[in-house]
């Protein structure tokens, strides 16, 4: 039945691409949005002011607040205002468990900030699909493998990679869809391969634990320590004696001179002779992801106790790959390059999904043809997973502003709004003719995107940028919806009409 190598590759590409493409599209869209996670966080919490404050001044205000409210805590965590995230947050627990209090960086007063999942939701969904963490990581890992397989099989079955390198023939129905799918996949192939492969490398110890199991009896912490990530022992006795702490500002300056821009710091055992100040760099000072690195100072004398560790070759390789995926380096120009490449990846996947239906449209369009029901299912899923997901994403931003501020478990309600909208979009796609469903959902997503401008906050650079970007994306989506709508009368034209979507 599949008698040649190329044919079996084409079969795999078609079916794996269709069945897993729906979720891969969701992963790519949320990953692309997560490039601007902090900016979205800031937009979704409009209470946070964006007053430009020096980090030293903000640090003093944070410490004064903690001195007044939490003098006995065993650990103070401070996230300083940075270029991408102007808020000042203090906490007493472990930083990654969230919580904490948001302060006005200009005055040091606590401010009430709405509970919102923020852009972090897109980041978390990107690698867990909102499933329980480890389950999600495995599912997304499996999907990444399918993506790699789709890329490789795609290269095999696309025989004219170089001959048609610059080829795009619009207004030719199926041919145009295939041309676009090929051009966007081939021209961005370095990006597709890099982002998929490095995505797998992030959780390599979860996916392939055998090495650590054999050499470190499965103890990841022991492995990291052997690779040079040693932590200083906490001085037990000294942490009982009260002591006056050193000024943090010169230490911040010293760390900044060594590491580049600073993200925040922790003070362990504050107000004791055993106080330790750990200063964390921002993630983007180099390609290798510097998560977990810090310069540690003695909290009383201000002496440098330990510098950031140098990684050995193997962990450094992994860190660089992870850093390539996280896209924290290179400042805003690099972030935009990643964002636009991500958008093209999404459209590449979407064009492949649409191509599946366009190719079979003539054969299965009539209701009496056997197989029509399956064709219809693919069509419904295409609308619901492509246009519907876009609706859900912009719907999350609306929910963050519209839900009552005092609602209990507000963040969870935002997530429910996201999934609720997505489900509604799937149902809507199920009861409407496919073309109508495309127009209506894309049109609504466009309106919602453009409508984000109405929430204001335009005097603040970051929020203005989010609104402007939403406006541009909204206009592009609207253009797509309009082209689909306008090209309605004949089936042939509709296909070419939807081509604009691929440009969006």
């Amino acid at each position, binding site marked *: 039945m599949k008698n040649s190598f190329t044919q079996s590759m084409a079969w795999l590409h078609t079916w794996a691409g269709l069945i897993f493409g729906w979720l891969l599209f969701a992963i790519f869209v949320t990953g692309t949005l997560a490039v601007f996670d902090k900016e979205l966080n800031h937009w979704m919490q409009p209470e946070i002011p964006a007053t430009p404050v020096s980090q030293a001044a903000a640090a003093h205000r944070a410490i004064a607040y903690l001195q007044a409210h939490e003098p006995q805590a065993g650990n103070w965590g401070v996230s300083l205002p940075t270029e991408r995230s102007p808020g000042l947050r203090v906490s007493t627990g472990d930083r990654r468990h969230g919580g904490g209090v948001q302060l006005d960086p200009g005055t040091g007063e606590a401010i009430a900030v709405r509970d919102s999942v923020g852009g972090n939701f897109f980041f978390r969904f990107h690698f867990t699909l909102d499933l329980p963490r480890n389950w999600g990581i495995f599912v997304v890992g499996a999907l990444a493998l399918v993506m790699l397989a789709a890329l490789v099989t795609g290269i095999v079955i696309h025989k004219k990679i170089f001959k048609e390198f610059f080829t*795009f023939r619009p207004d030719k129905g199926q041919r145009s869809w295939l041309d676009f799918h090929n051009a*966007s996949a081939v021209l961005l192939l*370095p990006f597709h391969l*890099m982002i998929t492969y490095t995505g797998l490398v992030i959780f390599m110890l979860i996916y392939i634990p055998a090495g650590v199991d054999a050499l470190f009896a499965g103890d990841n912490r022991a492995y990291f320590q052997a690779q040079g990530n040693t932590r200083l022992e906490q001085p037990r006795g000294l942490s009982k004696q009260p002591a006056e702490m050193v000024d943090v500002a010169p230490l911040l300056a010293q760390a900044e001179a060594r590491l580049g821009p600073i993200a925040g710091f922790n003070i362990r055992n504050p107000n004791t002779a055993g106080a330790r100040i750990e200063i964390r760099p921002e993630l983007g000072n180099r390609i290798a992801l510097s998560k977990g690195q810090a310069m540690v100072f003695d909290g009383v004398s201000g002496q440098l106790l330990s510098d950031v560790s140098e990684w050995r070759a193997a962990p450094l390789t992994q860190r660089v790959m992870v850093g390539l995926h996280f896209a924290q380096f290179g400042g805003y*120009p690099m972030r935009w390059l990643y964002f636009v490449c991500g958008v093209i990846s999404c459209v590449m996947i979407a064009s492949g999904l649409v191509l599946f239906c366009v190719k079979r449209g003539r054969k299965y369009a009539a209701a009496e043809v056997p197989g029509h029901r399956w064709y219809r299912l693919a069509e419904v899923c295409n609308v619901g997973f492509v246009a519907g997901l876009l609706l859900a994403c912009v719907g999350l931003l609306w929910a963050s502003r519209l839900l009552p501020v005092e609602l209990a478990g507000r963040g969870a309600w935002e997530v429910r709004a996201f999934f609720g909208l997505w489900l509604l979009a799937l149902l809507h796609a199920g009861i409407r003719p496919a073309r109508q469903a495309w127009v209506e959902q894309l049109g609504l997503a466009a309106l919602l995107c453009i409508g984000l401008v109405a929430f204001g906050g335009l005097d603040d650079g970051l929020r203005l940028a989010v609104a402007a970007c939403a406006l541009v994306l909204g206009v592009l989506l609207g253009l797509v919806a309009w082209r689909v709508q306008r090209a309605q009368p004949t089936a042939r034209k509709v296909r070419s009409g939807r081509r604009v979507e691929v440009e969006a």
Partner: protein
Amino acid sequence: MMWLVAGGALFAYAGMLGLCQGLERHYKHVWNHACPVALGKVLRGVGWLALLASLWLCAQAWGWAMGPVAWFAMLSLAGLLLVMLLPYWPRLAVGLVAALPLWGLLQWINCLAPG
């Protein structure tokens, strides 16, 4: 930095354009006549040189570690932009390369101004 980034992007586009116009079929599509063999070779050669210039500018902007990452992204995006413009506005797609001398001129003025 922004000037270097813009230059890197412009050279990437010019490079892709050179490689594209160096091919018989795309040259004919724009100019409606066959491409002289020698011109084709020159266009392809200049295209590769422009891509190298783009790499160099990216490295100046980001350093030699991050620069190549940005360079790959710029090549891809410039190529896709070109492919999308060609069928609709072929002359515009070629004409965009005029931004490059403009950029050069502004760079030159920039260099003169402080001194």
